[in-house]
């Protein structure tokens, strides 16, 4: 199963953090820092896999991909195929791209809610739920439409609808 999904920038600031097995918040921050420590030392032409035994426990590995200023990190154990995880990161990033129209780091900062929603459509409880960007986008758009049309919108201050209209 997938243990965690972390998106952080090249300075180590977390942009999206989701742990699928419970860790207390301080431990989460510590883990994020250790992962950053490992990733910042990697050269550019080495493999994308790192054994994460020291950080997350025995049998775990992490796969990372570096896009512009962001590291996308998936932590998983031996029940997952490593190369498939690499592809999954690709799917995730492509979906983000389509959702936000040429996504950049700032998009991720201000819309982390939507990102969570998107991630939840792809990975569910540590397992892969859907791998087609089309399907995921369809679901996310439906939810957005629902929110807009919901009658409770009158109580909702401008920020939320503005966010979704963006």
């Amino acid at each position, binding site marked *: 199963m997938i243990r965690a999904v972390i998106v952080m920038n090249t300075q180590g600031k977390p942009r999206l953090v989701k742990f699928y097995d419970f860790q207390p918040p301080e431990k989460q921050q510590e883990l994020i820092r250790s992962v950053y420590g490992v990733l910042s030392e990697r050269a550019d032409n080495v493999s994308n896999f790192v054994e994460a035994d020291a950080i997350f426990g025995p049998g775990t590995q992490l796969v990372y991909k570096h896009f512009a200023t962001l590291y996308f990190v998936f932590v998983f154990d031996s029940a997952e195929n490593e190369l498939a995880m690499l592809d999954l990161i690709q799917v995730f990033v492509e979906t983000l791209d389509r959702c936000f129209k040429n996504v950049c780091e700032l998009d991720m900062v201000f819309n982390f809610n939507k990102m969570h929603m998107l991630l939840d459509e792809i990975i569910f409880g540590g397992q892969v739920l859907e791998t087609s960007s089309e399907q995921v986008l369809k679901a996310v758009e439906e939810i957005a439409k629902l929110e807009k049309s919901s009658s409770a919108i009158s*109580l909702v201050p401008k920020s939320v609808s503005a966010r979704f209209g963006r």
Partner: protein
Amino acid sequence: MNPFSSGTRLRDMIRAIRACKTAAEERAVVRKECAAIRAAISENDPDYRHRNLAKLMFIHMLGYPTHFGQMECLKLIASAGFPEKRIGYLGLMLLLDERQEVLMLVTNSLKQDLNHSNQYIVGLALCALGNICSAEMARDLAPEVERLLQTRDPNIKKKAALCSIRIIRKVPDLAENFMGPASSLLKEKHHGVLIAGVQLCTDLCKASTIALEYLRKNCTEGLVRILRDVSNSPYAPEYDIAGITDPFLHIRVLRLMRMLGQGDADSSEYMNDILAQVATKTESNKNAGNAILYECVETIMGIEATSGLRVLAINILGRFLSNRDNNIRYVALNMLMKAVTVDSQAVQRHRTTILECVKDSDASIRKRALELVFLLVNDTNVKSLTKELIDHLEVSDQEFKGDLTAKICSIVEKFSQEKLWYIDQMCKVLSLAGNHVKDDVWHALIVMISNAPDLQGYAVRSLYKAFRTSNEQESLVRVTVWCIGEYGEMLVNNVGVLEMEEPMTVTESDAVDVVEVALQHHSSDITTRAMSLVALLKLSSRFPPTSERIREIVMQHKGNVELELQQRSLEFNSIIQRHPNIKSSLVERMPVLDESAYIGKRAGSSQATLSADKSSQTTSSGPSSLKLPNGVTKPPAAPLMDLLDLSSDDAPVSTSSTTDFLHDLLGGDSISPGVAPSGGAGTDILMDLLSIGSPSAPTDVLVPNAISSKQGNAPEPKIAPAPVMDLLDGLPSREENPVYPSITAFESSTLKITFSFTKQPGNLQATVIQATFTNLSSSAYTDFIFQAAVPKILLLCNCFNALDLIVALIFKCK
């Protein structure tokens, strides 16, 4: 508008936080914001509730504590509007975890939402449930989830399937309920549902064997069909990744097939064809294709495949290994490690490629390759492999050196058939990377050298040569110094030269030079210096002309800050100056260190040991070997040392205290295998303890010298049998006879106790001890009490006959 009121838009708060230049500023902003949110929460203001929760989630991601917002999540979930519910569930998943009791309060809301008409709300509820439910919640809500598995909406279906996975993990008993629905999921067309279904089945197999059987019977066909369809399917843009339709589905199905086929020949046979097809047809120029191939290979190795299929798999792995993409190589090495157990011959063919990977620039690949090489070593290829590895040791970088050295040393130890080769390799390793070598490795080397008398000359000469070139490596220095000390005359007189050696002349003063360098070198630590001092002492006896020079060198340390060195320096000085007559006997050649005992001790117990000292060499080296740190055995002989001090002072006393000494001697419960072997198959612990019926060492009493009281770095516990015998007041007999001689256990002016030993013919593990008490005084004994105690390793079956006892007494007490 005050930027810190709870009316702040989320976006503004994020901007404010990002605008902070220092961490302290950020903390201040966050604190203010949290205070505002807390105020809003206590006012129970419904308007901004979900905006506040969004802010809280952001703050949580930055790492600040946010537990005060947990109840807010619940309130939001309970409200009617969709946006509120969504934020509420999201907050639930991020801020809470399954251990909180608060979670139980959500169960009711969850139940309602699971039955909601709006499918997205149902989806939300399933999502939350699937991510953080606890065992009780799982039990409560399992029937709902089961029902949802049968809906028509694929969105809900797949979420329900994955939710069931979590339920099964939390409550494995419920696995059987999900068997039926799971297998029907496999008949779906929608890929998302299929993947979820396959994952559910995989987890079911892991959770319960009944489910495994059921699925194996009913689903194997279906799975093969799915795989065939998806690999033959035409271009489907929706699921296409790099030209292959839905590789994720491929991989999942392959994995489930592996679980079903493991250990079951029938289903494995059924899968053979499709596996062969996938393995040959899939293109391997893209990552997706390689992922499928990798999983395919893993499956082939996991089930009972035909040998043809296995060969195919290993060939694929071989191709992976030469791929330029680091990821592929990494993954291939991983797979090969598992394959080695199944078919090691095939893997051997790729040995050269694997060796190349050890030298790769990527650290992850190097580590994997090294582990794999270690698994591949066998008797035939060990020499060439070691040579390669040692060559690489020279050029490898520092962090890797430690690992590499450890592996090389263990390979060399395990597989060396000739001592000569072993010594050679160890010399090289020590000179290249001595600082990374662990202590027990060079200890083992010394043990081995002392066990190979014909190679000692060669060993000391090679070490001498190695020392001249690289004297920075600590372990090399230590071993060299010890060997020169012990076998100095072999070095100088060229004893035991082997044919391949070049002639070399070393004078006595050269040898002393070497030790002096080791002593004075600034990077030598205490152990090395201590060993050098001792070696100098030995040399001064073996090379009398250098004695004066050595004495001067030794005296340089008489004011050393380290107590150890100072003490040694002064004592050795005094020995050299004033006790030349005992000096030579003090530093005689050390008795052979027992290799098997050493290995046994290393492998087994950690307690103080009695490595059986079989040598018939003079044990007047006994006292000196106490202080000679040969570094062979590890310390915890602290209790032993005390014991030996005690023993040398006390006369052997009553039996009970004797057995206490023995108890201490053995350090309690465990006894090392080294105890047994004195002279043949000694299964009798007691006899060995008392060293009766075995060739004995002479019985000279230990001279309790001040030297023995200090621990040194590695006191020599191996002479322990000697004090045991002294303790029991020596053996009258030296001949090996199976009749066990009686011993006088205690003798004073008033009482004499003798033990005589017999063994029942059928029961060799038990010894019958007959104690005879002789009253030597002129008065009569009254109220005589006899108590016996034995160390835990012996079992006292007291069946002594009281009557016999008294009779014996009476007859003697006249």
